[in-house]
Every structure is written in structure tokens, then in C-alpha cells.
């Protein structure tokens, strides 16, 4: 685990005397940068200090201080802890310069901060709402914005006990539904802003041109939100010249379930099962990241055995996720069903272990602050050992044999969707996407958490930067995960799995923390701010699929529309985490 203070190893305050100051609030770390100096300081952070990967940009509404704070977490792709810096802006007029030109990976996250918190980023190329629709009333993550089914600031709600007469939430709302409108709102008189208009305007200009004496038009194609190859309710608006993509905009938010807002109402523990539902293939790694973030704040040690169980569960999750990736990716390429069916067969066996240990196939809700919920019994360990030592290696090889050399597949993916290492870093790619571009950056190695520093494994990495590399990286990674699993299952010690007695109300000291894990899809991180109360003051998820989409347009331009589907499949997005 990294100490939050280690980012102070670089004294930014000395580099910019008088402008930048260290953040001295108890429990906080990093530096506070004035808005007007942000561009200069950020450039220095990237170029002089080498923090080339901007992981997260998010806002916090400190309503008591009448301030909005934008928090940046930057990392070095060579490894090491986070460099945290913040910008504070007044709440009434939250404007600051955008860092998109320094780290393009900030693009979507800044849009999200605008959408949910109403923070304006000057110089952002395309500052529209991203998760909600254009025309939605208010910025929901502001502390004074109340959702229609608002009951109380924080849970537990008083109406549940001791006089918990059941009432439907609808009854309490004047509109008898999950709705709220401004006073004297008259739907018949108002003309609505068309949510699509701004979107279409942001595309490269729709125009006709003459080529060889023939007038041609570009074609606008809407893919999704209901489309079999978008892995859920993702939508992309594509501008085509014939069959070639000339411009593309991803549209998200069709599964925006308000994790952040609900998370701030919940108690710390209550967020745990909600994290399951982010990346619903990998509930174990989701739990892991959140547990790490809160444990950092609480400063507790995890017992040895629990750590091993955590690693075993995460790596099984990774294998299971990559298997599904292969199946779905091949599905996108037109190899309908067979690879997916094979993948699901192995996945079921892994889910059986989850079900036996954690009680559910998908929504495991297995991690607790300080340990895990239940011990992994002998039977489950035996099953895991059998799978890891006897079955899965052969099955991974079988998948490899089934697909990798297939000439049709190779000609379909080789050289498609190229992304160079520099671009990948600039757009904040993480996970297999980044490693397939030749950057061996894996959080398990670069900034080891839990007990990953004890295991011997290689960081799967391919230099080609195309779809084939992305596919191969996943296969390599499954093999590496099996290596880790083999070691963990041999070494797992006996002992407690939880320090002390399980508590449903945890005491979390005030402060901020950033817990990140290498989820199968990339860097999944949680930014948690506590003010010492039983509920997090700010709970933010830094989703991997969401940020990984930043480079989608770049990868698709110049490719055929049919390849767009493959490129999207190669990113391995999952909507629960993308939209939250």
C-alpha cells in the first residue's frame, strides 16, 4: 500500500514558490494549485517530473467552504505512487482551464465533472453533458441538489425503523414517480432542447463534396443504444464516407445508475454491494479497489490469509473476464456463439467457486474492510486447485489453438485499430489496452497493492498496438494469472480472515484516499473522501472502460465501419462501469 504522503517527494511548492502550496488539511495530501497557474504547473508535472499518465480528474463539492475542488491523480508509467494536485474554485462560478491539451485522457472525465457538478473547463474542445442528457435540470452531484426520491441526507433512513410502515417511494413524491420539475412547469408550452442537436454538431461537418464529378454525401449512422455488438446500451454516432469512418462520437449514460450520488448517501459498508454492480463481470476486483481505498483511510492491516484469498479471487476473476472477452470479441468479429459458448462453460466452473465461497455467482459482495466476509473452505480450495492446476491451463491452450492462428481471424484483426504507445499514454489508456501498445504498465507491478509484490509473474505486453496484440495480451495475461494463482494456492497460510469482530458501522477518520487496482479491464480506482462521519463525503469511481474509450475515435478513423465493432470489442467495455 502506498502512503498518501509519498507524493510529497517532489516539492512542487518549491518549484512554484508563492503559487503552489501543499495541502495541509489533516488526512489530505498533494498540492493546491491556483486555477490561473494550472496549465503551467500541469505541463511541468508532465514534462519535468515525468507524470505522463493522468489517471483521474474529479470534482468535490465542499459546500461548507463554498468551494469546488477539482482533484487530479497523475502517475508515471514507469511506476510509483500517485501525484495529487488540486484546484479550488468558487462554488458560484467554478471555472478553470482544461488540461485536455496536456493529457487527452482528461476529456471525458472533465465532461463528467461538468455534467454532474457543473464545473466549467475552459478550452475543453467539446464540453457537453456526458452521462445525463442535454437539457436535464441541474447538476446532480452538487450537495444541495436533491433527487426526486430524496428521503434523508444519509442512510439509514429513519422511516424504516422502529415505525417502519411500508410505503412506496412514489407516494411521497408530488409527481407520484421518480420525477421532479421546476415550479409551474408546463410540458405543453415548453420547447425542449433537442438532446441530439449538440451531439450531431460536435461531429465533423456533414457536407457533400464532389469527387470525380459525382456529388457524395457523408452518412450519419447511429449505432445503439440497442445494438447487438455494443455490449449493452452503448451508443456511437458515426460519420461515414462510404464505409470508412471519418468521425465518431461515443454517447454514454444509458446505464447511468448514479453510483456516486447513492454512494454518498450510503454508509461506507453499504457501498460494498453496490461496487459489485459496477463491472458486473468482476465483482471481486471491484470490491478489492473499494476495500483498499477505505482501508487506507482507516489504516488497518489485512490478515495474511485474507490477503491470499483476495488475490486468488481477483485472479480467478481476471481469467473469467478474459475468457468472456475472447468469446464476445469473436462474436463481434462474426464467429457467432462457439467461442462464447466455450468461454461460458469454463466461466461457470469459476462462478461455482464464487458461489460456494461468497454466496452468489456474480454479485459476490465478498470483501470487508480488513478482510473478507467468509473463509474459503477446504472444499472450495480443492476446487480452485483442481481448476488452476488441472483444467484451466489446458483450456486456455485450447482457446489459443481454436482461434489464434485462424487465418480469417488474423486477417480480420492484424493492423486494425492501431494505437501508438505515446497516444495510448496521452489518452490515459490502462490495462490490456495500454499493454498491447507496448507499455508494460501493470499496477500489480508498478505500484503493488495487497501482496502482489510476493508473486513471480510477467507483465503481459505486446508492442504492435493493434487488435491482434490486444487479443494476445489477454491470452498471455490468463497464463500469468494462472501462475499467480498457482503460487497463491500453494502458499496460502492458515489463520484469521478478519481482524477483530465484524462491525456494520466502521469508523473512518477524515481524509481522502485513492485506492486503485488492476482490474481485468484496466485501472479501477475509488476516490473516497471522509469527514469522519459514518458516510463518505465523496465517493467517486474512476472507471477503466470509461476512460479507455477516449481513444476510440482516434482508433476508428480511417477504418471500415465493420472494424469499429471489433475495435470497440477490443477495448472490452462493460456498461455498468462505463456509465456507473
Amino acid at each position, binding site marked *: 500500500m502506498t502512503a498518501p504522503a509519498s507524493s510529497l517527494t517532489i516539492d512542487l511548492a518549491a518549484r512554484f514558490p508563492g503559487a503552489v502550496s501543499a495541502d495541509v488539511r489533516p488526512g489530505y495530501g498533494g498540492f493546491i494549485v491556483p486555477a490561473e497557474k494550472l496549465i503551467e504547473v500541469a505541463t511541468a508535472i508532465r514534462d519535468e517530473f515525468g507524470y505522463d499518465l493522468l489517471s483521474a480528474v474529479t470534482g468535490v463539492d465542499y459546500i461548507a467552504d463554498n468551494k469546488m475542488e477539482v482533484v487530479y491523480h497523475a502517475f508515471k508509467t514507469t511506476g510509483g505512487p500517485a501525484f495529487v494536485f488540486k484546484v479550488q474554485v468558487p462554488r458560484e462560478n467554478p471555472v478553470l482551464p482544461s488540461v485536455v491539451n496536456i493529457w487527452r485522457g482528461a476529456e471525458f472525465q472533465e465532461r463528467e465533472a461538468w455534467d454532474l457538478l457543473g464545473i466549467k473547463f475552459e478550452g475543453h474542445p467539446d464540453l457537453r453533458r456526458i452521462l445525463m442528457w442535454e437539457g436535464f435540470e441541474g447538476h446532480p452531484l452538487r450537495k444541495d441538489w436533491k433527487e426526486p426520491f430524496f428521503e434523508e441526507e444519509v442512510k439509514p433512513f429513519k422511516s424504516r425503523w422502529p415505525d417502519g410502515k*411500508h410505503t412506496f417511494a412514489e407516494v411521497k413524491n408530488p409527481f407520484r414517480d421518480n420525477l421532479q420539475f421546476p415550479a409551474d412547469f408546463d410540458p405543453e408550452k415548453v420547447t425542449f432542447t433537442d438532446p441530439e442537436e449538440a451531439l450531431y454538431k460536435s461531429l465533423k461537418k456533414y457536407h457533400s463534396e464532389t469527387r470525380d464529378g459525382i456529388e457524395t454525401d457523408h452518412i450519419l449512422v447511429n449505432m445503439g443504444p440497442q445494438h447487438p455488438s455494443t455490449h449493452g446500451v452503448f451508443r456511437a454516432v458515426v460519420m461515414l464516407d462510404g464505409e470508412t469512418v471519418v468521425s465518431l462520437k461515443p454517447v454514454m449514460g444509458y446505464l447511468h445508475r448514479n453510483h456516486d450520488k447513492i454512494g454518498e448517501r450510503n454508509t461506507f459498508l453499504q457501498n460494498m*454491494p453496490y461496487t459489485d454492480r459496477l463491472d458486473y463481470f468482476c465483482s471481486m476486483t471491484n470490491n478489492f479497489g473499494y476495500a483498499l481505498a477505505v482501508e487506507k483511510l482507516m489504516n488497518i492491516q489485512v490478515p495474511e490469509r485474507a490477503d491470499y484469498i483476495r488475490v486468488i479471487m481477483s485472479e480467478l476473476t481476471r481469467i473469467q473476464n478474459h475468457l468472456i472477452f475472447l468469446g464476445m470479441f469473436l462474436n463481434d468479429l462474426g464467429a457467432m456463439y462457439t467461442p462464447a459458448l466455450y468461454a461460458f462453460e469454463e466461466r461457470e466452473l469459476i462462478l461455482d467457486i464464487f458461489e460456494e465461497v461468497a454466496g452468489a455467482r456474480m*454479485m459476490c459482495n465478498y470483501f470487508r474492510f480488513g478482510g473478507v466476509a467468509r473463509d474459503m473452505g477446504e472444499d472450495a480450495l480443492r476446487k480452485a486447485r483442481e481448476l488452476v492446476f488441472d483444467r484451466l491451463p489446458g483450456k486456455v491452450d485450447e482457446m489459443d489453438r481454436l482461434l489464434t492462428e485462424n487465418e480469417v481471424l488474423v486477417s480480420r484483426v492484424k493492423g486494425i485499430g492501431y494505437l501508438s504507445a505515446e497516444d495510448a499514454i496521452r489518452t490515459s489508456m490502462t490495462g490490456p489496452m495500454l499493454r498491447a501498445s507496448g507499455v508494460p504498465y501493470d499496477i500489480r507491478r508498478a505500484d503493488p497493492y495487497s501482496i502482489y509484490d510476493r508473486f513471480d509473474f510477467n507483465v503481459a505486453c505486446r508492442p504492435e498496438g493493434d487488435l491482434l496484440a490486444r487479443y494476445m495480451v489477454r491470452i498471455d495475461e490468463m497464463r500469468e494469472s494462472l501462475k499467480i494463482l498457482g503460487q497463491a494456492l500453494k502458499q496460502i497460510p492458515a489463520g484469521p480472515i478478519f481482524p477483530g469482530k465484524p462491525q456494520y458501522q466502521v469508523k473512518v477518520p477524515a481524509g481522502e484516499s485513492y485506492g486503485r487496482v488492476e482490474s481485468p479491464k484496466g485501472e479501477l480506482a475509488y476516490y473516497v473522501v471522509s469527514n469522519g462521519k459514518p458516510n463518505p463525503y465523496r465517493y467517486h469511481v474512476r472507471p477503466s472502460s470509461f476512460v479507455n474509450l477516449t481513444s476510440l475515435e482516434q482508433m476508428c478513423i480511417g477504418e471500415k465501419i465493420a472494424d469499429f465493432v471489433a475495435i470497440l470489442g477490443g477495448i472490452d467495455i462493460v456498461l455498468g462501469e462505463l456509465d456507473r
Partner: protein
Amino acid sequence: MYGKGILKGLSVTFMRFWNTYWQDAIWAWRRLTTGKKHYGSAEGIAHRSSKNARGIFTVQYPEEKLPVPEEFRYIPFLVFDEGAEGAKEIRCTSCGICAKVCPPQCIWIVRGTDPATGRPRPQPGDFFIDADICMNCGFCSEYCPFDAIKMDHDYEIASYTRNLYDMEKLLKPASYYEGIRPANAAREDEARRAKEAAKAAKAEAAAA
């Protein structure tokens, strides 16, 4: 050679295909000779969801069902001990911890009052769980100090209407609980007995 990769892949699919039917044949033969080791028997299902499974395996739900492990959780239910003459001794004391810990806040509890005195008594007056909000997280049963609310194994609860469970629907006997979670129930009983014994010993010591 162009096409080698495709042939290699086809060999994999062929082996899968062969294995599936070969396994079926083996199980059919066993069934003929021993009469009981049916493909869909508990043994057959266990074998075919182990590492030794070969080929494709399908559970013929609803005729045969995949057994769920002990820890499996679905919707919670309330446990009652069967007292004399079928009296239901509800374990719940309406302490409210489950309602407080429930993440989507889908538990509603009315604290019971004694009809004679009007004072609160350790029994729920009413208990609701909105099964269409419940996220099956298991916190309620994990943190209930009285082993009174437990996660059910019954998943065959599809209905034609929205599901709001009241106390009547939620109550299930302790014997049912012991049936679905024998190891947990035994452990908890043990702990409860130990606690009671300790209490009794303490009371004795105080009396002496």
C-alpha cells in the same frame, strides 16, 4: 500453409463435439448397467461440473436442478422456532440492525408493542421486505445478532405481480433453515448454547 490455423481450430471443435456425445454414451451405459448413476443424478451433475467434465453439459431444468451451495443467497426470510402446539416463536427482536444496514433500505420494521401494556416488546409488529428492491447482498443476515433473518435458497419465485413480502410470507421454520444451511445452523446453535450456558453460569455465580 494457409488454412492450417482453421483446421487446427476445427480439430478443437470436433473434439468437443465428440466428447459431448461420447460422454453421453458413457453415462447412458452406466445407467443401463448400474441402474442409478443417471446423468442428471446428483452424482452426475457433480461430476459434470467438476474439472473432469468433458464436452458440453446441460442441466435439464426444471426436471433436474443444479444444487446450490450452502452459502447461496437469494431473498431473506425470517426464522421462527416451533414452540409447543405450533406456536411460532419468532427469533427477531425487532432490534432494527438489519433495517439500518440494508444498503437499498428495503426493510421496514414496526417495533412490536405488548397489546396489554402498550410498551415495546422484543417482537416485530410488522416486517416488510420489498423483494423487488432487495439486492441479495446478505448484510441483513450477516449482521443480525439473533440469527433471526437468513438468506433463502428458493429462487423459484417468479410471479405475475410485483413482490412485496410481509411477515407472513417471510416467516419460515428453523427446521427449514437447518435443512438449507446445515453447517451454518449447527455452528450458530452451538454459539447460542455456549452463550446461554455462560449466562446461566454467570447468574448462578451472582446468586451464590
